[in-house]
């Protein structure tokens, strides 16, 4: 006669008597700990294998002729660039941490890691987490031997963090903040908290012609070509190599 589960219906889910099944056993933390401590060898072995793998990864660059064709460097320049590169990174690849360390050493007073991160992404064109010699030398070719338009395009690519073709205020603010971070604390005048923001505002005032809140590549190139000091400074590092 009596309704077997008067409460169950109102609650919606029945309380089940726990059964000692394998599934429920595995949920016990003690069991999990025992299993984990006894099978510790397994993961250890795997990680050592993967260590072995990683240490053998190395990258061989494309041939000298191909690089000569792709970039504007002479043969000798490519040779000396590669020697320097390979000396610093014997495996042929630069990962982001190494890159940040190297770049930070040029700016001892501030913190260059954020800007180094953006720079790394600008060089690592295929987004695989490491810079190969080809990325390195292609980037350098644009920066040192490219035309002004190409250089401006590269700069635009640097500022455009998500590579969608538009520079938003947030992206520019991130870049600007990272540049100001490189100055460090001891500057004259002191870097105020809104200094990057003001700088970004000025930048957008100059570059954003149609006031739509983003800067496109054409606006950027056009505005820069009209500004004499920017054009002059673009030629500054012609003779670096």
């Amino acid at each position: 006669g009596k309704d077997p589960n008067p409460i169950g219906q109102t609650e919606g889910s029945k309380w089940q008597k726990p059964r000692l099944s394998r599934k429920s056993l595995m949920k016990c933390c003690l069991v999990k700990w025992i299993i984990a401590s006894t099978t510790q060898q397994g993961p250890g072995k795997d990680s050592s294998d993967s260590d072995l793998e990683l240490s053998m990864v190395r990258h061989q660059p494309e041939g000298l002729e191909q690089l000569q064709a792709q970039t504007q460097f002479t043969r000798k320049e490519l040779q000396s660039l590669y020697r320097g590169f390979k000396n610093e990174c014997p495996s042929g690849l630069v990962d982001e941490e190494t890159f940040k360390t190297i770049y930070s050493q040029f700016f001892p007073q501030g913190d260059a890691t954020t800007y180094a991160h953006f720079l790394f992404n600008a060089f690592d064109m295929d987004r695989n987490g490491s810079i190969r010699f080809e990325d390195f030398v292609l980037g350098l070719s644009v920066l040192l031997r490219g035309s002004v338009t190409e250089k401006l395009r590269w700069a635009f690519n640097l500022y455009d963090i998500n590579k969608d073709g538009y520079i938003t205020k947030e992206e520019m603010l991130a870049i600007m903040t990272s540049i100001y971070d490189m100055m460090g604390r001891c500057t004259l005048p002191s870097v105020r908290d809104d200094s990057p923001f003001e700088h970004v505002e000025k930048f957008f005032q100059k570059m954003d012609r149609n006031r739509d809140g983003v800067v496109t590549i054409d606006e950027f190139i056009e505005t820069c070509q009209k500004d004499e000091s920017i054009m002059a400074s673009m030629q500054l590092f012609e003779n670096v190599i």
Partner: protein
Amino acid sequence: MATGVAAWLPFARAAAIGWMPVANCPMPVAPRDNSKRQDELIILNVSGRRFQTWRTTLDRYPDTLLGSSEKDFFYNEETKEYFFDRDPDAFRSILNFYRTGKLHYPRHECISAYDEELTFFGIIPEIIGDCCYEEYKDRKRENLERLQDDQEENKDMKLPNMNFRETMWRAFENPHTSTMALVFYYVTGFFIAISVITNVVETVPCGSTANQKDMPCGERYTVAFFCMDTACVMIFTVEYLLRLFAAPSRYRFMRSVMSIIDVVAILPYYIGLVMTNNEDVSGAFVTLRVFRVFRIFKFSRHSQGLRILGYTLKSCASELGFLLFSLTMAIIIFATVMFYAEKGSSSSKFTSIPASFWYTIVTMTTLGYGDMVPKTIAGKIFGSICSLSGVLVIALPVPVIVSNFSRIYHQNQRADKRRAQKKARLARIRIAKSGSASAFLLSKRNGVLNELLELKGTDEDEQKLTRSTCLIESQHHHLLHCLEKTTAHEFVDEQMYEQNCLETALQTFPSRSPTISSHDSSVGTCCGCRIKRNTPLPNASTPSTHPIPTHQGPLQELSAIHIQCADPPSQTTTRSNLNLKTDDSSRINCKGGRITTAIISLPTPPALTPDGDGLHGPPQRRPPPAPGLPAAPSIQTTTSSASTNIVKVSAL
């Protein structure tokens, strides 16, 4: 700047193009690279073995012999190679340093030969890599100790001009130096032995007379023993006073352990002389006599082994203390257990827990006197557990602890060494960083001077100054300068920054620092810097034209700065990372260091008179062609502060 990173400088400079569209000011001119040499192979002939490397590899370290023009002295015109008459094996590691940036110490190499090679090639040993640094330091220390031992042996030869006091002290410390000292040494040893034997014998019962029971010899032959004691104490007193007289530092001597032992050994006698034979104090007097046994410790001057044992115990004190502590714990546990186990039995000797301590100790050390024995079954069970655990607790760990002592002791020493080395390393890295930062600031001021000289048109002076900074340094500084222009802020060093903060916090008049107040718009700033350079600021009283120091105005002698600009920064700047010397000439403004709340109290560097007021430009300054002379006082003042800095930082 760190070592191998020079190879990445062209990359960092190229990447600086990313700042250009963002900057609102024109960028400074890049330094000219006059040497348009293509990279070429250099042949280094070291005693017949030829090494070849690229020229740029050697140029990485311009402070060393191979990286600078000093190697031109070794150039052999006929064979077109550089010939060095040195050890080719040692040269391998030196050349590897240029190639890899890390200096290694080959273990088979003799330490002094290696040091000589490093000194010849101008490489500082501190940059030896972590992998080899400890070994290098250990070997060096051993060598030094050996040299010191040799020196000490040589020192034992009598120096001609030692006064009587010094001779006596040396005689006391090293008995084998003269016959007198040897005699003295043996005499005191003899009397120490006599004194100890006397103390022992006077308690022996010496034959009984008819009507009295056995009494100790000391009471029977009181006079004889008293005379012996007096004689010994007199000798000891004389010895102590002589040592006190001869000691080079009396205060230190009085604090030393041996002198305390001496005092404790002879004091009971004098106290006994002074005190009367009062009943109350005689008990205390008897206690004092116990201290006479300390005379035996005077033997440690005569025995090297005793001293070593004492030193070992002292150094292992913490381990011994831990052993004692764990034993105490076990004793308390077992004593408590035995007490409660034996509580039930009648006529039990275990009257209290402290009384059970004695049983526990005797059982655990497996002595087993048998004066206290458990009677209940539970007591016997726990008693047997106690004796078994006693074997384990005492017998097993002792050898382990003994070997632990030596292991932990050496490990601690190594850990301390590593800690000190790490501190020194971090300090060195910090100095290198700050060195490069301050090198940049210094070169900025020099840049100003350069521009003014260009205006003046004296080519010679300009050459003298520009030649001094090497190309890589100037390129690096140019890069930092571009960053300053992009963000429209300038790098300053720590002291100036704090000063500036203090000023802006405490002072409010606008006329204070016009350049600060005009920093509302970042455009105005950087261009304003350039323009305002040539206008006299209201608070500036001297012909300095650099914007940074003028902010300080009346606080410092700005004339110091223009002298400082005149001194050639090359030696200190470029050696800053290798030489542990900070380029402290940039700190000349803030020699006082700490900023106090009274702004006025910054001490100014002495001996530099300002060259008149107003802005008169370079002609009023002391002519740079002789920068050494007027700059000398400034260098001296800075090196004094620099040297104090060095001492603090590089103390291992």
